[in-house]
């Protein structure tokens, strides 16, 4: 029934020096739908897939605004993501109350990760079952982090998490030289390309994905369906043109 006797709680090391529960929690991230993030020298873009389980339900919100300069995309147990989001919001608000400035992204991410670590070391807790892509912009420029249930965090130029994200990562890696100098529209185009690469079936529509971005002089903003449509259209055009060969035909300017 059990794979081994060391994998039922977070306070037991396996003889190999591993915590199986933490590794399982990281599997939970893969149960979620794909979330993609990438950054240029000025902006960070977040993109998520929506899997509405039926026509009758709304899709789950996976992108959360934390503060004007910062937002997250979650994959895995979204409810865990929401409680982390709540924590991040209150940290940012506190920072704003005391210093009247935006909280540095690195420091917030570290606090979140430290929080996550504690859940991997107490018998009465379980690790968070959610991966967070954190997109922010502060004095140091645009920043993109991935926070993992293990309490580790990594800074990325571009990254994708969630189920079937490998295809998205492959796309992101293939094109990564283009990102630093890309325009916001270009970035969004790349994000959608990556996202659509991870699709199992069907194609991307304005209802099946979400896009949000933040950058220099640009507060964190989630695109609504209508403003997403032109980007989807551009994606279709590009795919029709050269069979998914990148976002060279950048999306039209948002009106």
């Amino acid at each position, binding site marked *: 029934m059990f794979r081994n006797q060391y994998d039922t709680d977070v306070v037991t090391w396996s003889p190999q020096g591993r915590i199986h529960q933490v590794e399982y929690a990281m599997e939970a991230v893969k149960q979620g739908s794909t979330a993609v993030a990438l950054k240029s020298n000025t902006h960070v873009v977040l993109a998520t897939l929506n899997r509405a389980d039926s026509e009758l339900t709304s899709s789950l919100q996976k992108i959360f*605004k934390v*503060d004007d300069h910062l937002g997250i995309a979650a994959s895995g147990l979204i409810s865990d993501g929401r409680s982390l989001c709540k924590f991040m*919001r209150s940290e940012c*608000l506190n920072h*704003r*109350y005391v210093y009247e400035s935006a909280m540095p992204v690195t420091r917030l991410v570290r606090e979140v990760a430290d929080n996550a670590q504690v859940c991997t070391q107490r018998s009465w807790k379980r690790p968070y079952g959610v991966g967070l892509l954190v997109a922010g912009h502060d004095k140091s420029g645009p920043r993109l982090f991935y926070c993992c249930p293990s309490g580790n965090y990594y800074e990325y130029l571009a990254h994708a998490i969630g189920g079937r994200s490998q295809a998205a990562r492959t796309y992101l890696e293939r094109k990564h030289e283009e990102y630093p100098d890309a325009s916001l529209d270009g970035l969004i185009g790349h994000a959608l390309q990556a996202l659509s690469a991870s699709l199992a079936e069907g194609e991307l529509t304005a209802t099946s994905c979400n896009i949000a971005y933040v950058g220099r002089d640009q507060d964190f903003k989630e695109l609504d369906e209508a403003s997403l449509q032109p980007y989807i259209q551009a994606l279709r055009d590009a795919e029709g043109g050269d069979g998914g060969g990148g976002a060279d035909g950048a999306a039209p300017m948002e009106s």
Partner: protein
Amino acid sequence: MAAPPLQLHTPASIGPASGPGDIKSRPAWSPYDDNGGTCVAVAGSDYCIVAASTRLSTGFSILTRDCSKLFQISEQVYIASAGFQADIRALQKMLQTRNVMYQHIHRKPMSASALAQLLGNNLYYKRFFPYFTWNLCVGLDPEGKGSVYTYDPVGSFERVGYSCQGSGKDLIQPVLDNQLKAASPLVLPSENWMTALPLEQAQDLVRDAFVSAGERDIYTGDCVEILTITTGGVHRETLDLKKD
């Protein structure tokens, strides 16, 4: 305030034993100060004007000539506050924080009426160690009509058509009453109290009111900031007042 008598030497300083811990010479302190300032708000049927002087004073001293007493809470909702500046700042920051939380939850900015109630609650929450602030909460209601809420420091508030708060209140309020008073409040509900004056005339009235208050109230002066809120947006103008 009479000047203290001239001293060739200080009696207290002769006795070496009397250090600064001498009870009689201990300076008392009060947690409050009055930094003055005047705020005016006028509601019209399709606009709302809010204005405040920018002088910050203490006693007979001017601390700075440029300290805004208007504070934007959300796109079209402002508060204007006179009184103790530290309390004003605390109140503003608290409301700002609450507005962000409200937006996270409700995904829309706070309305003037929502803020009005929140402000009232928070003032009363400190009933026994009050914020020493005289506030106006100003914005447009859902129909686009100007709405002005006026407060006392401990949280009693009501919606009115116009109001004045702060050190110049005694000078300006009667003028507003004279110029703007509409039908009896007994007859009309308060959301219909707004003045019939066209925008330009109302703005002129506010300017005149501040110029006059600046003449006679030492706590009102330097500059007045006038915001006009309409559905089209917020227009800001400043008008210099006497700097003496």
